[in-house]
Each structure stands twice: as C-alpha cells, then as structure tokens.
C-alpha cells in the first residue's frame, strides 16, 4: 500500500514536471509548478534523505545529543522536533529566497524553477542536514570551529573571513532592496518607519511590563504593524503630510546607514529581539497565507518558460543562464549561510539524532518551496510589467515612454497607461525602475492575495508585502551588523586585547562603525549607480553565498572521508563540484569578460573611456570616478572569493588524500558516544 502511494507520488511528480518542461503556448497554470515541487520534495525527503541519514551520516537514535548531555535549561534544551523545525525554519528563511527567484525570472520560469528543485533536493537540503548532524555530534560547534578542528587553520580562517565578507555584501544588497522599495513612496516609507517605534514598544513590553510574554507582545505588535500599513495609506492620501515621507534614494540610504549604526549599538532587547519576534510571526503567517492563496487563486504564469535573455543580454542583470541562474538563486536552492545557523543554535536543541532529518532536510525543502512561490509571484505578472518594474533607467532609458518602447521591442508589450493604472491600483506614484525584486514581488503577492480575498484591497496588500519584506530585511541588517561586530572584536582582540572585550564601549563603537561603514559603502555606491546597483551587488552576494556553501560542503566531505566512508563522499562531493564549477565560472566572467554588462573591469574601462571622451551627462560624470573605483574593487573582491574557495577545497583534498593513504590527519573532534536515556 505504502509502495503504491509513493509510486503514485513519483508518477504525479514526473507528469507535472514533464508537463512543465514540454509546455509550449500562451500561459500555464501555477498549479503545475506547485504539484511538481511538492512531489519532488516529498520523494527527496522520503527516500534520499533517509538513505543519506542511514548510510552516510549513520544517524543513531541511541546516542545522546548535546541537548540531553549538557542540558542547562537555557541554550542546551532537548526540544520537540516540530518546535525545533519551526525555530530552524524561521532562522534560515529570510528575504533571500524571495528576491533571488524574482530576479532570475528574467530567464523565464523554467531555468530558475528547475535549479530551485534540483539544487535543494540534492544540494541545499543535504548540506543543511549534514552540517546539522556534524555540529550536533560536536556539541554544537560552529562551522568555523569545525573547519579548524577537522581540516586545519586554513579552512578555519577561510570560513571566518568568508562569513564576515558575505555578511557585509548581504546587508548592503538588502539595504539597497529596501531603499528602492521606499524611494519616492510616502506610503512605503511611512509604514517602514513606523515599524521601528512599534518594535521598541514591544521591546519595552517584553522587558518591563510583562517580562517574557512573547505571544501577547507579538500580537500587539502585529496589530500595530497592520495599522501602520493602513496608516501609511492615510499619510499618502494627505497632501500635507505625504511630503514628510517622500525621499530620494540617497537620503533613504543615509537613513538606513544611520539606523543600522544605532541599532547595532542599542541594547538587543530594545529593538532587535522584539522586531525579530514580529518578523518571525509575520513570516510564518504570510508564507502560509501565500501558499493557501496560490492554491485558491491558481494563477496563470504569463512569463514564457525560457526567454531570449538566456543568451546573456538580460536587462535585470547581465550574464548567460549558465552560470548566472545558479548564482542568482542561492537561497532556496543551496545557501551556504544556512551552514552557520545549522552549526549554531539549532544543534543545541535537538532531542534525538533521528530528528536531524526533519529539521535539516525538511526545513530547507520548505524554504525551497518559498522560493518556488516567489518565482510564481514574479512570473504571473505580464512580462512587460515585470521588466518595467525590474529594469533600471540606465538600461531602458530615463523616461516612461523610452522604457515601454524598449521593453515592447523585446517582444514583451507594455504601455505607459498600463503601468500608471497598475501604480495607481497599488497606491504608488510610479512602478517604473523599482529594481531590487521587492516591489515586483509585492505586486505579484498583492495580485494573488487580491485574487483570493477580494479585489478591493490591492494597495493595502502591496504595502503589506513591502512591510513584510522590510521587517525581516531590517532584522537581518541589524543582526548581521551585530554578528559582524562580534567577529571583528574577536579577531582584532588577538592583536590588541581590550578591543576583544565585547562590552567595552569604545570597542563596541569602533567595531560597529567599521562594519556599518563597510556595508554602507556598498549601499551608497549601489544607490548612486544609474544601473540600479542590484545587478552588481546581487551576483556578488550569490557568489559569496555559494562560496560559503562550498566551504561547508568541503568540511562535510573531509569529515566523511576521514570517517572511512569515502565511497559515500559523492553525496557532498557532487554538489561541491557543481558549486565550484558554477562559482568559478561566474567569478571568472565577472572578472575577465569584456562585455561591460558582465565584467567588472570591462565596465570600469567602458565608463572611464566615456568619462574621458566627455560623453557622459554631467550628473553621471560626477559619480563616475566612484563607480569606476567600485567596479575595480568588486573585481578584486570576486577574485578573493575564488581564491578562498579553492584554498579550502585544496585543503580538503589534502586531508582526504592523507586519510585515504592512512597517513596522520587531525583527530576527529566528535564527542564520545554516550547512550541516550530516552531510548535506553
């Protein structure tokens, strides 16, 4: 009976996937994608994850987990698997799986969808589960510590620098996304600003008025957030007040930088912790709502399966479908960042090793499904509308007429009237060139929600979606700055002891300012870039994130080989090889391509030539030297990523080779076996 059921799932999945791949014509229903995805996740979880867990990881429920052995009632606490699943999912799923697929939709729905499914089932889920188990067996050690313990100092240092750099790029690109969503949008700006005092209020509530009553505090906060969305509409409708919230991108960037600095030095309980509770509730609620709405509305996908932009001429970002779809969609397929979460808080909560499969593999499959929903939300828009929102004026021309003419000439008809009508419906003055992915996702989500729950509230849904993204982007920004600060203090503390004292105020101020300055610089450049900035920063982030995944998979492969299971090492070695190929190819193209839309040096040279020839308009000539410097810096940064990845891979190969030859390697850092009380 069970076999029949799984056979049916396999047949249904194959049918849906085949339908997707072979479909040619006007539009296809989103349900095809949903069904294919759910079947693939179910099969991957039921069979592949079970096989990896049993054979490769040798999960042993009789072995006591650190939560059981070291139970202290605080961070080491054996916890019900579904509760850990919820915590872990809330920790790994951020704005990444929403933005990446939205940008990658320029290639059509098929390339991104296939990569999300295959990448997750064979790569991302395996990485998360493996790192989670390895860290659980090592008392919850971090990825950096495991790299140092198992491979050596090179791996450890690479993991540490990789984490720090990726944090800086991630925060900059997310800051840019939020700035682009708020630019000249009084409604969005007022709503996002309002989330700050609301979080502070909840923080005071949770600390002073009703200590630790999270549910009460969060419900109050969520109600206020919804009020803020509606209130933003009143602000927008009032000619007197709306001017207070109508800003240029650059002004907003300075706001975000100032906010990030304040948030990093304020106590956690005041802003970060309460906003994170709001963000977690909002995230889980909205994702569930979106899934239900897609099932009810069953929207048609209007984007072609594959567009002409797979040749590298895409307007959202430059580069061919290989390797750039694999770089653009990191979160949702394989995300190295997850390895940091899977080797931090989560392993200390696991009650039994048998829970690792659900928590590691299952949470990532769910995140991957979020990415699929983002892909659906992006591709159900008219392609012309999608490109009008996501393309910068530097590419399609500064005026609405020029933009629609260019986009229509690509074969994606769109009119100025259509865009104005859409903007009016969404309560915005314009939707042209709102790059970064968040606004087009919000338009897509608003259409799905309005299609399901009534057409009247499009503008409210749009700004709800913007607020939803803003809340967790700000959480990532704030948490990332803080983690970066701790890492910097830790590293610099080796050079000069006092700077390592995490509560010494001068050190806190200095290191926080350094981190904020680092991401603030990239954010600033992204905002002044007439091509929108996202087309530079997002690939950089993707490469950095895949680089971190390559480091994590190298650590995992090294450990598997050291344990004498070299014949199973392909489980992590295959995704590692793929990521190494993709990251290196993409990085090399970003460095040496002579197409200024792809290569950093080429773009710098192109701009320098135009500047020298005096063909740039004055406002662009004024920022050109900064843009030229930044392109060169990005090229060197990309080269640095490649060197780091290959250093770690070489180190892993060295350790594996020695282990296979029976030569001395670093001893396993696994905690010794202790029997679990629950199965004894």
């Amino acid at each position, binding site marked *: 009976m069970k076999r029949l059921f799984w056979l049916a799932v396999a047949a249904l999945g194959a049918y849906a996937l085949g339908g997707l791949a072979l479909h040619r014509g006007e539009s296809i229903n989103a349900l095809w994608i949903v069904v294919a995805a759910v079947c693939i996740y179910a099969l991957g979880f039921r069979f592949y994850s079970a096989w990896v867990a049993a054979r490769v990881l040798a999960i042993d429920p009789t072995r006591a987990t650190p939560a059981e052995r070291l*139970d*202290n*009632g*605080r*961070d080491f*606490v054996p*916890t*019900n698997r*579904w*509760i850990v699943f*919820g*915590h872990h999912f809330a*920790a*790994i*799923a*951020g*704005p*990444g799986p929403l933005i990446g697929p939205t940008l990658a939709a320029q290639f059509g729905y098929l390339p991104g969808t296939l990569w999300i499914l295959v990448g997750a089932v064979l790569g991302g889920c395996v990485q998360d589960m493996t790192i989670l188990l390895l860290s659980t067996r090592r008392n919850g050690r*971090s990825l950096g510590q495991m790299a140092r313990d198992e491979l050596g100092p090179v791996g450890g240092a690479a993991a540490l620098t990789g*984490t720090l750099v990726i944090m800086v790029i*991630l925060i900059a690109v*997310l800051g840019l996304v939020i700035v682009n969503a708020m630019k000249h949008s009084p409604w969005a700006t007022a709503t996002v600003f309002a989330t700050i005092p609301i979080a502070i209020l909840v923080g005071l509530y*949770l*600390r*002073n008025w009703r*200590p*630790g*009553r*999270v*549910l009460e505090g*969060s419900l109050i906060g969520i109600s206020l957030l919804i009020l803020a969305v509606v209130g933003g509409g009143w602000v927008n409708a009032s000619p007197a007040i709306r001017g207070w919230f109508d800003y240029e991108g650059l002004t907003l960037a300075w706001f975000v930088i100032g906010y990030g600095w304040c948030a990093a030095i304020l106590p*956690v*309980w005041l802003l*970060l*912790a309460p906003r*994170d*509770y709001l963000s977690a*509730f909002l995230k889980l609620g909205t994702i569930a709502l979106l899934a239900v709405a897609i099932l009810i509305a069953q929207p048609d996908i209007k984007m072609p399966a594959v567009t002409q932009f797979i040749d590298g001429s895409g307007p959202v970002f430059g580069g061919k479908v290989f390797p750039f779809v694999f770089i653009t969609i*990191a*979160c949702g397929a394989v*995300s190295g*960042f*997850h390895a*940091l*979460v899977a080797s*931090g*808080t989560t392993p200390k909560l696991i009650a039994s090793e048998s829970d690792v499969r659900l928590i590691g593999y299952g949470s990532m499959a769910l995140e991957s499904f979020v990415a699929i929903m983002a892909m659906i939300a992006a591709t159900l828009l008219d392609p012309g509308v999608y490109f009008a929102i996501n393309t910068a004026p530097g590419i399609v021309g500064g005026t609405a007429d020029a933009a629609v003419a260019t986009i229509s000439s690509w074969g994606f008809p769109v009119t100025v009237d259509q865009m104005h009508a859409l903007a009016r419906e969404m309560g915005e003055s314009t939707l042209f060139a709102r790059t970064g992915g968040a606004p087009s996702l919000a338009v897509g989500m608003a259409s799905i929600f309005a299609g399901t729950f009534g057409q009247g509230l499009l503008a409210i849904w749009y700004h709800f979606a913007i607020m939803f993204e803003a809340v967790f982007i700000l*959480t*990532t920004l704030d*948490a*990332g700055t*803080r*983690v970066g600060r*701790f890492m910097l203090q830790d590293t610099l503390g080796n050079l000069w002891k006092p700077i390592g004292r*995490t509560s010494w105020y001068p050190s806190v101020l200095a290191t926080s300012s350094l981190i904020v300055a680092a991401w603030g610089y990239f954010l600033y450049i992204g905002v002044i870039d007439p091509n929108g900035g996202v087309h530079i920063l997002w690939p950089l*982030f993707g490469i950095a*994130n895949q680089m971190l995944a390559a480091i994590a998979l190298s650590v995992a492969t090294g450990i598997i080989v050291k344990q004498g299971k070299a014949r199973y090492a392909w489980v992590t070695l295959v995704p590692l090889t793929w990521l190494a190929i993709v990251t290196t190819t993409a990085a090399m193209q970003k460095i040496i391509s002579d197409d200024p839309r792809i290569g950093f040096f080429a773009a710098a040279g192109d701009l320098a030539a135009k500047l020298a020839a005096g063909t740039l308009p004055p406002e662009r000539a004024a920022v050109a030297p900064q843009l030229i410097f930044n392109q060169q810096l990005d090229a060197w940064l990309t080269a640095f990523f490649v060197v780091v990845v290959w250093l770690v891979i070489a180190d892993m190969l060295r350790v594996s080779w020695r282990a296979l030859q029976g030569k001395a390697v670093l001893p396993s850092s696994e905690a010794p076996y202790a029997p679990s009380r629950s199965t004894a």
Partner: protein
Amino acid sequence: MNRRRESPAAWLRRLIARLNGDAAYERFVAHRCAVHPGEPLPSRREFWCGEVERKWRGVNRCC
C-alpha cells in the same frame, strides 16, 4: 499518558507557548529545581534579559 488526557486546546496552547518562547522561563526553573535544588533563581525579567543577550551573540538569522 498525561498528554493523552490533555484537551486539544490545552495541547495547542502549550505548543504555541513553547514555540514562541513563552514557556522558556518555566522550563528553566523546572530544570534548575531538578538539577540544582535550593540555588537562587533569577526573576522572570532577569532571565529574559540574559536570554536575549545570549541569543543574539551568534548567527541565528539568515538571508
């Protein structure tokens, strides 16, 4: 066995309280009373402040 007799609503309440961290303090107190009986316990507020600080020291939010 106890869990069986609990009403579904109470079970759901307990699950939510554990999921969002409302029950963290009770859990900590239960643990301390069982393992280190007689030692002084932090107040709910002290516990909350310490936990929040601890939680946000490492990477626990992702992209």
